[in-house]
C-alpha cells in the first residue's frame, strides 16, 4: 500500500515535470522555423524501430516514434507516451497510464488517428511474433504477457522481476493500423519504409537520391518542434560528407571522419561534439567455417596483427586498443584483462597447433587446403583509414601464411551478406551500445539465425549460462562480476578480434543552437534544437540566390 502511494507520488511529480516540459516548449523563447540537413554514411534499409538493427535507422526512428517512457538529458527515466505508472510491490507487474492527447502522424488534410492501449499491446505482440524478424526478442523475453486494461491503461506482467526493468519500456510504439501484415512485421512490409509514428517529426518522403525528408509534427504532444524540417542525406564517402559540411551544403555530420577532426576543430563556424563513447570496432569470424571454429586459429589472427601500430598509423593514436566485448567507457569493462600482445611467432605456433603446415607460396595448409578466407567490409566504411586497416589486416595475416580476400559491399548488400546469408569468413564492423552494455544478443547461442546479431554463430554453453544468470540476477554487483567473467572468457575465446574504441564526433554548423546529443540515440532532444531568426533569414537569402 505504502509502495503504491509512493509510486503515485512519484507519478504525480513526474506529471508535474512533464507538464512543465509541455509548457516550456512553447514558452522557451526559441524561434520556430528553419531546416537542418545532416549527412549519414549510408541509406537505412528500414525506417521502423522493430526490424532495423543499424544506427542510421535508429537515429531516424528516434525522431518519428516514442516509447512509453523516455530518457531525459540527465539520463533519468521520464514519462513519454505513458503519463505515469505503477509498479507492484514484488516488481512483477508494471501498469502504465497513457496520455490521452497523442495522435498518430497524418498527412496534411487527413484525419489523425488517436493513440491508445491497443497500439501498445499490438507493438509488443508484433515484436514477439515468430514471424517478425527483429533483434528485440531476446531483450523482451522477460515479459510474460501484456493486457489492455482500458483504452488508456496497459499492464505488463513479467515472468520475473529484472534489474532496470522500467528502462526496457523505452521501446518504440507502432500503430495497430500500420503494418500491412497485421500481426507481424517483416522487411518487405511497406510500413518499414513509410512508417507512421507519434514523434516530433513525421516522414514526408524518401527522394530518389536517397534523401529522407522529415517535417515537424504540428500536433506533437510535447509541443511542436522548433525546426521545420530535417533531411537525412546519405554519403558513400566520408570525405565528401565532410566537404559538404565545409561548403554548407549540409549543416551537420553525425560521424566526423577522424582525419577531418583537426580541420573542424580549428574552424570557428563549426562545433565538434563528442558522443557515443560505448562503441568499438572488430573483425568478426564466422564459426560455421570449421577452420574458424578452432579457437587457436582465431587467437592466432588476433596475435598476428599489431593493433596499436594500426591505431597509431591510421588514426593518429585516436582511440584505445581493447581486450574484450565491452567499451572502456562502460560499467562492464574488465581492466584486469589485457589485450593479447602482438606476436606473429606465437600466432604461427598456434596455427601449427591447429594442424596447419607451411607450404607453397609461404601459405599455411591443412589437408591440402590453403588457409584462405574472405573478408567482407561495408562500403559505407570505405574511408581511407578503414581501407588501410583492412589492407593491414590482410598483410599481417599474410605474414603468418593466411590469405585474405577482401571485398567491399554496399551497406545493405553487406548487411544481407553478413546477417542474412552468413556468406563470409571474416567481417569488419563496429558495435554501438547504450548504457546497459548488453552483449547477450551478440554472443548467446539463441541469437544465431537470420538477421540476428550473433552473425558468426558463436556458441558456448558457459557463456550462455552466464548471460542467463546476468539476466536473472537482481543484484548489480553480481551482474558486474558476471560481466567481468564474460569479458575474460570472450577475450580468451576470441569470437572477434576486438580492435579499439574510437570517439565519435558530430560536427555541425554553429547556427544550430541548443544542440544536446543523446550518446546513443542521437536525436532524442532534437525537438528543442533551433536556429535563430537572423540565421534563418540568411539561409533563405542563400537559397534565393
Amino acid at each position: 500500500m505504502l509502495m503504491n502511494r509512493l509510486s503515485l507520488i512519484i507519478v504525480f511529480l513526474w506529471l508535474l515535470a512533464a507538464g512543465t516540459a509541455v509548457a516550456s516548449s512553447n514558452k522557451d523563447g526559441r524561434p520556430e522555423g528553419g531546416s537542418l540537413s545532416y549527412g549519414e554514411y549510408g541509406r537505412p534499409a528500414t525506417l521502423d524501430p522493430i526490424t532495423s538493427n543499424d544506427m542510421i535507422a535508429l537515429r531516424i526512428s528516434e525522431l518519428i516514434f516514442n516509447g512509453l517512457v523516455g530518457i531525459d538529458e540527465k539520463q533519468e527515466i521520464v514519462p513519454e507516451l505513458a503519463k505515469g505508472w505503477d509498479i507492484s510491490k514484488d516488481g512483477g507487474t508494471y501498469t502504465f497510464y497513457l496520455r490521452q492527447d497523442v495522435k498518430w502522424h497524418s498527412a496534411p488534410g487527413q484525419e489523425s488517428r488517436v493513440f491508445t492501449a491497443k497500439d501498445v499491446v499490438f507493438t509488443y505482440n508484433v515484436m514477439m511474433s515468430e514471424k517478425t524478424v527483429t533483434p528485440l526478442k531476446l531483450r523482451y523475453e522477460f515479459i510474460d504477457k501484456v493486457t489492455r486494461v482500458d483504452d488508456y491503461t496497459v499492464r505488463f506482467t513479467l515472468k520475473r522481476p529484472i534489474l532496470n526493468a522500467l528502462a526496457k519500456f523505452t521501446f518504440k510504439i507502432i500503430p495497430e493500423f500500420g503494418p500491412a501484415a497485421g500481426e507481424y512485421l517483416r522487411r518487405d512490409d511497406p510500413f518499414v519504409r513509410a512508417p507512421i509514428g507519434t514523434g516530433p517529426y513525421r516522414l514526408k518522403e524518401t527522394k530518389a537520391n536517397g534523401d529522407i525528408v522529415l517535417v515537424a509534427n504540428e500536433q506533437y504532444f510535447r509541443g511542436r518542434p522548433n525546426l521545420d524540417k530535417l533531411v537525412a542525406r546519405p554519403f558513400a564517402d566520408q570525405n565528401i560528407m565532410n566537404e559538404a559540411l565545409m561548403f554548407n551544403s549540409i549543416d551537420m555530420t553525425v560521424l566526423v571522419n577522424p582525419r577531418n577532426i583537426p580541420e573542424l576543430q580549428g574552424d570557428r563556424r563549426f562545433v565538434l561534439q563528442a558522443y557515443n563513447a560505448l562503441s568499438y570496432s572488430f573483425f568478426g569470424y564466422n564459426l560455421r567455417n570449421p577452420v574458424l571454429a578452432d579457437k587457436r586459429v582465431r587467437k592466432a589472427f588476433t596475435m598476428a596483427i599489431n593493433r596499436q601500430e594500426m591505431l597509431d598509423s591510421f588514426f593518429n593514436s585516436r582511440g584505445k586498443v581493447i581486450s574484450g566485448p565491452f567499451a572502456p567507457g562502460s560499467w562492464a569493462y574488465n581492466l584486469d584483462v589485457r589485450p593479447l600482445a602482438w606476436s606473429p611467432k606465437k600466432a604461427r605456433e598456434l596455427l601449427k597447433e591447429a594442424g596447419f603446415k607451411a607450404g607453397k607460396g609461404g601459405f599455411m595448409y591443412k589437408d591440402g587446403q590453403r588457409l584462405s578466407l574472405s573478408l567482407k567490409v561495408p562500403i559505407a566504411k570505405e574511408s581511407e583509414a578503414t581501407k588501410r586497416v583492412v589492407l593491414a589486416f590482410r598483410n599481417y595475416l599474410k605474414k603468418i601464411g593466411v590469405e585474405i580476400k577482401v571485398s567491399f559491399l554496399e551497406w545493405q548488400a553487406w548487411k544481407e551478406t553478413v546477417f542474412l546469408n552468413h556468406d563470409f569468413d571474416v567481417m569488419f564492423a563496429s558495435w554501438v551500445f547504450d548504457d546497459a552494455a548488453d552483449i547477450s544478443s551478440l554472443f548467446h547461442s539463441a541469437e544465431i539465425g537470420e538477421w540476428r546479431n550473433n552473425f558468426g554463430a558463436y556458441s558456448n554453453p558457459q557463456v550462455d549460462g552466464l548471460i542467463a544468470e546476468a539476466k536473472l540476477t537482481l543484484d548489480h554487483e553480481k551482474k558486474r562480476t558476471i560481466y567481468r567473467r564474460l569479458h575474460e572468457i570472450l577475450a580468451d575465446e576470441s569470437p572477434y578480434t576486438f580492435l579499439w574504441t574510437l570517439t565519435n564526433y558530430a560536427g555541425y554548423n554553429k547556427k544550430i543552437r541548443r544542440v544536446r546529443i543523446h550518446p546513443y540515440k542521437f536525436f532524442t532532444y532534437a525537438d528543442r534544437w533551433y536556429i535563430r531568426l537572423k540565421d534563418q533569414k540568411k539561409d533563405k537569402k542563400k537559397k534565393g540566390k
Partner: protein
Amino acid sequence: MSNTQKHCCVLALLAVLVPCPAWSDSGPSQPGGYLDRHRYQSVINAVTAERELSGDMDSLMILAMALRESSELHELIQRHALSVQQAYLGRILKAGASRFAGLYLAEVLLQTKDAGKAGPYLDRFLAQKDVPAKFAQIARIHKARALYLQGRTEQARKQISTMRTTDAEVRAELVSARTLLGMQGLRSSALELKDIADAQLQVQGAVSIRVLNRLLELYGSLGEFSEAWARLREANTGAPVFMEQRRDGAELRFYSAGLPGNIARIHRLAAMEFFAILRKIDTYRVPASYMLQEIEAWFPDRDAAAKKKAGTAQASPVPEALRPMQDIVDAVELIRTGDGNSGELMLDQAAGRYARDPEILTRLLQACARVKARCETVRSTAAALSDSVRGDAFRLLQSGLGVHSLSLGNEREALEQLEAGRDKSRKNSIEVNQPLNLMRIAELYRKAGVWSEHLEIYFELAEEFPTARIIYDAAQGIYAMEQNSAGEVKVF
C-alpha cells in the same frame, strides 16, 4: 627547437636561464620525452633506473619535475577518489550488497575527517554476525581513530591499549593509530612498519596495500621519503586492499582510502629534496629555488619537517624571465597570509603587463583558482585574448578559464571552457591534454551523470597512474546501478 625541448623549457621556465636537460632532446622513450607527454610515472621509473647507473644532474632535474607534477596529480586523484568511493560504498551498503562496505565507507570518512559519521558505520559493521576477527580488530582501531578525531583521546587510547595481534595488516593499522594517539613515537613506529613490511615481503612475496599505505603515511609524517619510495617502486598501487567473495559468487573490490594522498606526499617530499640538491648547483640554482618556493606556496603548512630540511631561501635576484612566476608565488603568499587585496592587485597588475601572453595569463588564472580569488581583471584579460587567438593559445586560455570557473563553483561554465581547451584530436590522451584538466573534466561529467565520458578518461589515466583505478572501479559500480537503458545494440 623540438616540441619536447620547447615544452620542457616552458615547464621549467628555463627558456633563457639554463640549457634544457640533455634528455629532453631524446625520443619519447627517454625521460625527457615522457615528461613532455605527461607520463610522470614513466619518468620516475626510467630516471630512477638510469640514475642508479649514472647519477647525473640533468636526470635529477627531470625527476624532480616529474615528482612535483605527480604529487599534484595524486592529490587530485585522492580528492576525487574519496568523493566517488563515498558515493559508491554508500550505495552498496544501502542495497545490502556487502558485509564489508561499512568498514570501507568508514575508512573513507575517517580520511575526510568526518569521524562523527564514520563511528556508526563501524558500530553497524561490528554488530554483524561472524565478522572475521581480523576485520573486527581493524574496525576497533578505526573506532579509536574516530574517537580521537572527536577529541576523546583517552577513550580512544583505552580502545586499543590492550589489543594484540600477529596479523601484519592489523599491526600496521595499530601502529598507525598508536602513533596518532601519541602512544608511541613517530620514528619507532616508522621502523616498526618497515619491519612489518619486510616480514610480509618475505612471507607473501609482496607488501599489502594496507601495510604500504600506513608505511607511506608514517614516513611522510617524518619528512623522509627514501624508504617509502623504494616500497612504492615495488608495489602494484592499483590493487584493491580487499576483495569480498560473496556466497553467490559476486566479487566486490575495496580500495585504500588514503593511498593516493600518501603517494602525493612522498613524491612531493622527494621533489623538494631533489630541488634542494639542485639549488646548490650553479646551472640549476635559479629554477630549482623557484620550484621549491612554488611547492611551498602551493602546499602551505604541510611537510614541515621537509621544509625545515630544504630551507626556503631564494638564491639570488630573480631574473626577468622568471619575474611573472615570482609575482604569482608572492601574490599567493599574500592572499594566504590574509592580505587578499594586495595579492589580487598584484595578480591583476601582472595580467595587465602580460595581456598578450596566453601562457602567463593561464598561470595567473591557475594561481587565482588555487586561492579561490575572483581575479576579475585577470579573467577578463584572458577572456579577451582568448577571443582573438586560435589553436594552442586558445585552448590554453580556455583551460585556464575553466580551472578558474571551477574554483568559483561555476561548474557548467567550467565544463564548457575545459572542453573548449581540450585537444579533440586525442581527447582522452594525457599526452596531448593536461592530466589534471582531464580529471577535472571527468569529475564534472561524473557529477552530470555522463559516466562513459568519465570512465574513458580514467581508463587512460589508469594506464600511467595505477591509483586512478580506484576511481574507475567505484564509478563503474555507480554507473551499473544508475544506468537507465534498455539494452540496445546496433551495428555501424
